[in-house]
């Protein structure tokens, strides 16, 4: 087991290393040049000055060398300065990461609970009316474009009904707990709805399969109450595949978070990366993407480990 974990961590680190190089090269292919904005604010710069700056920042070096120098700095936590924020990258990134984690974790918990309730209800009578309605809802959740769902939420609940604020994380001059919570309602619902659909389908499929098994029939035969059969005997076994898939989807949730944040103007990682790419803020975009990769890798790792821990029948090698 320990060997397995160590090997998986090593693999993840290797993927991260390869990815850092890929992202580094891709960022270099984005329009513009780190010097462009610096020069735009200083029109008097002569070609000699430009050349000097180029040398100073190592931009005349080949890609591989620049990457290795960047890697050296990154390994000791030096990710450089964000140009658009005029701050060290990490002091922009950390608050954004916290904001995104808050949104993701609340939405994740909400959608998991909702998916369990809906999935179990649907599995009680496959092919019934309730199952049909829940399946339709689940398919809708998988198929809806998240940004458009956010837009429709804004249209209905902010523009028409005025129930919730359309954007931001707090009202200027207020910022109390209630105010912050109100600002989180719509982003959380949007993100949760988008992932509930897929989860519900997995819970349903897994429950239907387990409810057919012999130990469930035995439980019924010995006279256990139906709720006990469903919630104790079946549910615990149905959990195994479902938990894995949910943990795996935590990385996918990040895609939704990016869009939700952009739509509701929440200062999280997604919006930060998006703005950084649009604003040619190379260091910030690069570091943001790396952290996004780390989040995805971590959730995959946790999913694999959870699988082995929940189901001792699976031999991890």
């Amino acid at each position, binding site marked *: 087991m320990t060997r397995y974990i160590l090997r998986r961590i090593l*693999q*993840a680190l290797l*993927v991260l290393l*390869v*990815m850092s190089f890929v*992202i580094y090269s*891709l*960022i*270099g*292919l*984005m*329009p*513009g040049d780190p010097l462009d904005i610096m020069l735009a604010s200083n029109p008097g710069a002569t070609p000699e000055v430009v050349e000097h700056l180029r040398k100073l920042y190592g931009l005349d070096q080949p890609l591989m060398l620049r990457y290795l120098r960047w890697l050296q700095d990154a390994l000791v936590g030096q990710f450089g300065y964000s140009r658009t924020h005029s701050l060290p990258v990490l002091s922009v990134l950390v608050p954004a990461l916290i904001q995104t984690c808050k949104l993701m974790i609340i939405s994740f918990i909400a959608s998991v609970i909702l998916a369990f309730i809906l999935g179990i209800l649907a599995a009680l009578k*496959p*092919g019934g009316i309730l199952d049909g309605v829940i399946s339709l809802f689940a*398919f*809708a959740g*998988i*198929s*809806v*474009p*998240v*940004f*458009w769902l956010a*837009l*429709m939420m*804004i*249209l209905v609940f902010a*523009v028409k009904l005025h129930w919730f604020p359309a954007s931001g994380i707090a009202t200027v001059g207020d910022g109390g707990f209630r105010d912050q919570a109100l600002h989180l309602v719509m982003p959380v619902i949007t993100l949760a709805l988008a992932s509930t659909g897929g989860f519900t389908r997995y819970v349903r499929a897994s429950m*239907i399969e387990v409810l057919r098994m012999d130990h469930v029939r035995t439980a019924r035969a010995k006279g256990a109450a139906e709720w006990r059969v469903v919630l104790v005997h079946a549910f615990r076994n149905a959990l195994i595949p479902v938990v894995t898939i949910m943990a795996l989807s935590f*990385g*996918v949730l*990040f*895609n939704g978070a*990016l*869009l939700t944040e*952009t*739509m509701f103007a929440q200062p999280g990682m*997604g919006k930060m*990366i*998006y703005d950084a*790419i649009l604003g040619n803020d190379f260091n910030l*975009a690069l570091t*943001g*993407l790396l952290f*996004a*990769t780390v*989040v*995805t*890798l971590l959730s*995959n790792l946790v999913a694999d480990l959870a699988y082995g821990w929940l189901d001792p029948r699976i031999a991890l090698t």
Partner: protein
Amino acid sequence: MSATTATAVPRTEAAIGPWRLRWRRFRRHRAGMASLVVLLLLALFCLAAIPMQHVLGMDPDATDLLARFDPPSAEHWLGTDEAGRDELIRLMVGGQMSLLVGLLATAVGGIFGLVVGVFAGYFGGRVDALLMRFTDGMIALPLLPLLIVLGAVDLTKLGFSSEFARSGAAGFWRIVIIIAIVDWTAIARLVRAATLSIKERDFVRAARASGAGPLYVMPTHILPNVATPIIVAFTLTVGRVILFESVLSFLGFGIVPPTPSWGNMLNNAQELVTTAPALAVYPGLLIFVTVIAVNFLGDGLQHAFDPRSER
């Protein structure tokens, strides 16, 4: 009850090929059939733009700044957008773009995934380990940020001329290719698993023993026998790709205006929600209906292809 009917029944059963049987089972899947009809209607709707453009002379790009945000009228059935362009014809042409990107990117990425999966499954060993680590690495990536970076890549830095980089064709092919680059992993894994289970069957061993090389065995013996799960996976991929296209175009990294797509028609959606909410509803609703129909179609196909499936 004569003996002739008793013998006739198995004969007709035997005469029905597997694809006829599958079609029969698919027809009984109500949601799948309804989706097929919806998708055909949507395709007709989008293609109707061609006669409307050439016979009636309607132009999706003709602006009329005196008629911005017009409500629906006899001339403009769904009204006009922020530049006074006819919303209906733009929805039709935009749909052609979105559907075409969906199909093309699925084909390109799917074929790549297919090749990776078959090679990994068939050869096993080192080839398998290498290809699957590569696939696992791709799966571990944050998709949307990666798509955005790929969408932001400056084509002139890759050696393309700046006229080409700004043209509509470049925007179209760019989005097809970047989506294909990130969305092939599911198919690769599926094909690998299916290949693994087929390649040790006796008929494949027999073919190999009689001297058939891998390039003959793979297309003639492996692929036809793994076709059904692949068809389902391709269908579901089309839905996902249409969603990716809409997101990228919406964020401004996809189909370049003035060419409409359902995604980029929502570019100004944030302002539209307050000024002209209907314009923010139509394109998104069409994406939603298309993708949900594609997903139900995939579900119906899965049901039709798997005799053991529930219900």
